[in-house]
């Protein structure tokens, strides 16, 4: 934890709202990033950010000052995002990305080998977004926590309430689906760029 965080958290725990404000300002973007990766939706991610700080405020008394505030906040954000996905019934089904639209985008990508590199890059990003949307909520969550957040599989299992092997298998399923969606673009981007 940054030295400034230690002092600021200490002040916030003592009821100093300015100190808590500082923590909100310092950590909002990072919380948004994990929230967005998990929910795949900008507005949901904003809601998760709000809920995360609200919970953090209520639980400040339970925070151990020796711990890392950012890590603690990250865990709260993950739980808030999971709660939101559960409340929307999104954990057990696909995110609802339009498969036809994804296919159309796939067709566009390989049509013009002369297209501008930046355009291709933007297009690839949209393919990645579409591929992520094809994952179920559990797959996306497990994948995001392992791939982007570096969370150990044991902890992912605990977070999702599943066994370690099931967590590993969920991550594998996610990667397999991503490969199915993105492998053609890996080849074409390797050729084109």
């Amino acid at each position: 934890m940054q030295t400034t965080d230690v002092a600021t958290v200490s002040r916030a725990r003592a009821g100093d709202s300015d100190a808590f404000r500082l923590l909100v300002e310092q950590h909002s973007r990072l919380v948004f990033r994990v929230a967005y990766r998990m929910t795949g939706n900008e507005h949901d991610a904003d809601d998760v950010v709000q809920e995360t700080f609200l919970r953090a405020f209520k639980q400040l008394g339970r925070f151990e000052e020796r711990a890392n505030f950012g890590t603690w906040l990250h865990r709260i954000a993950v739980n808030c995002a999971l709660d939101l996905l559960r409340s929307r019934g999104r954990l057990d089904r696909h995110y609802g990305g339009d498969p036809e639209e994804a296919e159309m985008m796939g067709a566009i990508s390989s049509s013009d080998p002369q297209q501008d590199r930046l355009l291709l890059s933007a297009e690839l990003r949209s393919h990645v977004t579409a591929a992520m949307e094809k994952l179920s909520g559990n797959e996306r969550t497990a994948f995001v926590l392992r791939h982007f957040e570096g969370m150990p599989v044991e902890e992912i299992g605990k977070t999702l309430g599943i066994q370690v092997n099931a967590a590993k298998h969920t991550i594998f399923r996610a990667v397999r689906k991503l490969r199915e969606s993105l492998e053609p673009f890996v080849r074409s981007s390797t050729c084109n760029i």
Partner: protein
Amino acid sequence: MQHLTEQELVLHHYHDEDSPAAVAQHLAACDVCRAEYNSIQRVLALVDEIPIPQRADNYGDQVWTRLRWRLGSAGRRRNWRTTLAAAAVLAVAFFAGEWWHAHNVATHPSVMASASPAGPAEATQAAAQNRILFVVVTDHLDSSERMLLQVVNSDSKGGLDLTSERGRAEELVASNRIYRQTAEQHGDDRLASVLSDLEPVLLEIAHSEGRLSPDEAAALQKRIDAKGLLFKVRVVSAQTSGHEAPAARKGMTSL
């Protein structure tokens, strides 16, 4: 040579396999598996391209602005426990003072004679006692008003989420009882009446399952409206806050 499965390669990528050395050794020796592994790595590298929507430079500020009032209610909840305890102590102290005064007047009529009209010391003590009580009652009414406003101003068509308000409502119910009983004991009918009207609404919020259906939310709003509760709370709150001034004015609600 038996090739590695796709799952083993994915586990290897994340260092989650049971025997990494054996997998690494196989990869070094097997072109097919190495090609497959490289393909997985390229796809996952592509996933790193996933765009994160940009947030304004003052995003932290924006989050804080939206969060502030919600934190206010959470903060008030934490502080309210202290306030509630203080209110109970004050009420007990107030009654003890009253009892002591009545007891001394009854057992020592001479005290009554000498104390009537009340001496300056007694008058000052009573005024100070009243001022403290007015402060906590005003605070209680303000908190209740904010809760009523939240209910009244919400769109009942989508139902009403009271999850975050239930705990605070429970505390308000407890303190409301103390103030209502105190007001009744002192013959302050107007304050007692408002607090009496307020209690069932606070109870309903405190005992709700957290989320009211559109019908339940509309019914609660109607009850608040029908009794003119918000207006009454505001009026009494304004009157009690007027009493916080050093000299309590006669003819206004007193406790």
